[in-house]
C-alpha cells in the first residue's frame, strides 16, 4: 500500500522531470526480493535491501565503477576473502548491490551494502564468510561477471557498473607455504615500533607470522631480506647483514641456513662480522644444498646437518667463477623442480652485489650428487636495449618466468638496474623452443615496478600461479599513483595458463590479502608446506592453525 501510494505520488513530477532529462520513478510492482542462501545483507543495510534494486535505471549521473578486482582476474578457490572496491558514482546512491553472476545461467550471488567509505569517493566491501565460500564453490571454473549497482532508495533509481569478468579457479594452494619480507607496525607501546623481517603463513591463513626477524635469535643481525626456502619447506637460507657502516653496494653479509622447524638453531651460522660470503642464494628442493651468489661468483655449499653427508654444514662443494660462466657473473639463481638445472642471470655489467645493469637468462645443468655444473645455455639473451633478471621455473620445468627492463638511463640519472626497477615487466620463455611471451595481464602497466616473479611449485592442469611484487594500485586502498615518493610495493598473484599460448597466458593479478596494505612487501617464495616449529612452546604454529603431522594447517574457517 505504501509502495503504491509512493508510486502515484512520485509519478506527478514525471512529466516535468522528463522534460529536464532527469530521472523519474515510473512505479511498477515486483515480487518481494527474498534474500536466501545466495545473498547477504551487510550490517547497517536495510532488511529489504533486495527491493531497492527493482527501480528504473537512472538516466543521469555516474554509475558505480569497479576499481578492484581487476578485470579478468582469476581468484583462487582457496582464497577466502576479496575486498571489492568501487567508486560510488552518483552521490545520492544510498545502497549498493555487489553481484557475482554467471550470465544467462540464473546463477548469481548478491551482497547488499552501504558505502563503507574509502579514499575520496570510493567504497569497499569485503566478501568473506559462508555465502562467499558457497559462491566460490558454485562459480568455480565458470565465466562469471561482477557488477556493482547503486540505488538511491526503495523507490528511487539504480545504475550499474560495467560488468567485470572474474573467474574462480581451482588452485590447491591451501596450506602451501608462503614466505615473504615485510614490515608490520606495532603502533603503541612497542619497542621497536615495528616488526621487520621474513614472515610466513600457510596459504589460506588470514595473517602471516613473524619468522626470521632482525636482532633476534633467528637473525642476530640488523637485516635478513634476501632469502630462499626449499620447495619441501624444510630449510630457509638468508643473508644476515649489518647495514650500519656496511658498504653501499651491499657487498656484505653472511650466509645463514636453518631448519624451518627450528629457526633459532642454525645449520650454517653467520660467520664473524666483516666476512662477506653471501648475497642472493637458492636452496635445492630438499634444502640439502645451497647455491650462493656473491662477489661475482657462485658457490655450492652443503646445508645438511653435521654427519648427514660427507660434507660439513656450510662446506663449499663447488665454485663457479666468471671464467666458468663465459666471462659473466651469476645472479639470482633458482634450482629447477627436479634439481637437475639452475636458472640464473649472467651479467657482464653488475650494479651491486644484488643487482645488475645488463643480463641474460641462462640455464646451467647441475649434478648435485657429484657437485658439478654444465656449461651455461642462454635461453633469453640480453641486448644493448634490454636486460633480463629474476628467473623462476614453472612447476613442470617447461617454462621460466622472468623480468625484463630497458637498458637506459633511469629517473635517478644512472643506468637502470634490476633492483627496484620501475620499468620491469613480466615475461615467460618456453624452454623447448626458447620462444618468449609477454605476461602483460600480470604486469598490468609498465612503469609500476612489477618484478621478482616466483612460481608456486604446484599446478592444476595447465594452470600455475605466479606471485610478484608490484606498485600497481590496490584498488582505492593503496593509491600508489597519487604518491610521488612513498609508493608501497605489494605482493600480487596471477594465474598462468600455458594452454592459452601463444596468447598471453596470464590473468590480471589479485592482491594477496594477508598483507598489511600500508607496508611494503617483497620477495614472496612458495613451499610445499609450513613446518611446525619445535624450538618454541605450544603447537609450533600461528594463531588459527594447528600442527598436523609436523605441518601447520589452517583451522579458522
Amino acid at each position, binding site marked *: 500500500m505504501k509502495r503504491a501510494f509512493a508510486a502515484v505520488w512520485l509519478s506527478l513530477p514525471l512529466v516535468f522531470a522528463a522534460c529536464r532529462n532527469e*530521472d523519474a520513478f515510473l512505479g511498477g510492482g515486483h515480487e518481494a526480493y527474498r534474500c536466501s542462501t545466495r545473498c547477504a545483507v551487510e550490517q547497517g543495510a536495510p532488511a529489504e535491501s533486495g527491493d531497492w534494486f527493482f527501480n528504473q535505471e537512472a538516466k543521469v549521473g555516474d554509475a558505480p565503477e569497479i576499481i578492484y578486482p581487476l578485470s579478468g582476474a582469476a581468484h583462487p578457490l582457496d582464497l577466502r576473502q576479496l575486498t571489492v572496491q568501487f567508486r560510488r558514482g552518483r552521490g545520492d546512491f544510498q545502497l549498493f548491490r555487489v553481484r557475482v553472476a554467471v550470465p544467462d545461467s540464473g546463477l548469481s550471488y548478491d551482497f547488499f551494502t552501504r558505502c563503507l*567509505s574509502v579514499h*575520496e569517493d570510493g567504497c569497499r566491501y569485503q566478501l568473506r564468510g559462508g555465502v562467499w565460500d558457497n559462491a566460490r564453490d558454485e562459480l568455480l571454473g565458470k565465466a562469471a561477471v561482477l557488477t556493482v549497482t547503486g540505488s538511491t*532508495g526503495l523507490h528511487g533509481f539504480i545504475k550499474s557498473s560495467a560488468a567485470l569478468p572474474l573467474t574462480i579457479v581451482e588452485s590447491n594452494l591451501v596450506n602451501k607455504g608462503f614466505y615473504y619480507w615485510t614490515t608490520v607496525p606495532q603502533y603503541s607501546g612497542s619497542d621497536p615500533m615495528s616488526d621487520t623481517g621474513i614472515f610466513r603463513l600457510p596459504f589460506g591463513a588470514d595473517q602471516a607470522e613473524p619468522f626470521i626477524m632482525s636482532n633476534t635469535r633467528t637473525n642476530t643481525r640488523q637485516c635478513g631480506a634476501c632469502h630462499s626456502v626449499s620447495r619441501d619447506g624444510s630449510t630457509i637460507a638468508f643473508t644476515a647483514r649489518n647495514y650500519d657502516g656496511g658498504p653501499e653496494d651491499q657487498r656484505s653479509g653472511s650466509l645463514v641456513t636453518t631448519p624451518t622447524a627450528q629457526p633459532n638453531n642454525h645449520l650454517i651460522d653467520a660467520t664473524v662480522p666483516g666476512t662477506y660470503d653471501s648475497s642472493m642464494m637458492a636452496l635445492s628442493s630438499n634444502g640439502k644444498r645451497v647455491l650462493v651468489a656473491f662477489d661475482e661468483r657462485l658457490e655450492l655449499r652443503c646445508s645438511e646437518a653435521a654427519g648427514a653427508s660427507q660434507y660439513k654444514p656450510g662446506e663449499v662443494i663447488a665454485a663457479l667463477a666468471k671464467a666458468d660462466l663465459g666471462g659473466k657473473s651469476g645472479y639470482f639463481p633458482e634450482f629447477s623442480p627436479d634439481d637437475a638445472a639452475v636458472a640464473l642471470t649472467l651479467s657482464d655489467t653488475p650494479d651491486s652485489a644484488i643487482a645488475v645493469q645488463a643480463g641474460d637468462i641462462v640455464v646451467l645443468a647441475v649434478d648435485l650428487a657429484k657437485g658439478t655444473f654444465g656449461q651455461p645455455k642462454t635461453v633469453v639473451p640480453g641486448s644493448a636495449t634490454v636486460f633480463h633478471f629474476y628467473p623462476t621455473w614453472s612447476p613442470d620445468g617447461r617454462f621460466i618466468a622472468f623480468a625484463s627492463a630497458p637498458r637506459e638511463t633511469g629517473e635517478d640519472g644512472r643506468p637502470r638496474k634490476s633492483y627496484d626497477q620501475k620499468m620491469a615487466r613480466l615475461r615467460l620463455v618456453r624452454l623447448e623452443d626458447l620462444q618468449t611471451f609477454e605476461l602483460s595481464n600480470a604486469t598490468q602497466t609498465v612503469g609500476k615496478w612489477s618484478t621478482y616473479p616466483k612460481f608456486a611449485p604446484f599446478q592444476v592442469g595447465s594452470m600455475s600461479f605466479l606471485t610478484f611484487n608490484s606498485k600497481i594500485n590496490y584498488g582505492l586502498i593503496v593509491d600508489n599513483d597519487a604518491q610521488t615518493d612513498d609508493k608501497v610495493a605489494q605482493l600480487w598473484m596471477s594465474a598462468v595458463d600455458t594452454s592459452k599460448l601463444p596468447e598471453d597466458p596470464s590473468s590480471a593479478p589479485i592482491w594477496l590479502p594477508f598483507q598489511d596494505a600500508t607496508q611494503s612487501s617483497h620477495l614472496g617464495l612458495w613451499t610445499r608446506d609450513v613446518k611446525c616449529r619445535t624450538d618454541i612452546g605450544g603447537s609450533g604454529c600461528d594463531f588459527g592453525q594447528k600442527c598436523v603431522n609436523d605441518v601447520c594447517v589452517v583451522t579458522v574457517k
Partner: protein
Amino acid sequence: MPWPDQGPPPATDPSVDPNVVHVPFLVDDYFVPNGCFGDGDCGGGVISINSRACLDRPASAQGVCRLYTYTPLAAGAPGFQGYLGILFQDVGAKSEGHIGRVPPLAVQPGAKHSVFWAWVGSGSVEVSFRAGGANNWEGKTDASLPYRDTFGVPKDVTLTKDFQKITIDLADVTYGDVVSPFGWAITTHGRTEPIQLYIADVRWE
C-alpha cells in the same frame, strides 16, 4: 535509523567532498591505535597489539580485529598509574602518535553512532570506550598541545568472553574535525594479571 525513500534526484549529482572522510567508514581505514597513555607510559611491555590473534570474529565484521594484551603494573612499581588506554588517531608526521600532537581529520557530519564488537580472553573486565576525547579526556586538556577533540562520548561496558556489539551514541554530538574517533581505557583496581581485550570492526556510521 529508517532509510528514506528517495524521489527524483537533483539535476546534478551532489558533490562528494574529497577532503573529508565520508560516513560510514571503518575506523581502521583512516586511523591507527597509536595514542597510548597510562602505566609505564606504555613502555616496558605493558601493552602489546596483535592484529593476527583473533581466532574468531563476528561474521559481519568488515574491519580489522585486534588483540590488546595489557599487563598492569603493580601499585608502587615504577611508572605505575593504575590504568592504560589507547586512542586511534591519524598517523602524524614522522609517525607522531603523541596525543595532542596528531592533527585531526575532517569527518563528514551526520554520523549517528560508533559501533564495534568487543570481548575479553577470560573473566569479566570493565572497559571505558570513548569516541573523541583526545587531549580532552573527561574535560582535561593540555592547552600547550596543538590538537584536541571538541567532544568526548564515553561508554563503560563490562566485557566477558562473549562477543558484544557495542554502540556509542553520536546523535547529539557536533563535530567537524576528529582527532580520535575511538579509544578505550581500563582501570586496573589493583589487578595485575594480564588482560586480553579483543576489539573488532570499529565503525562510524
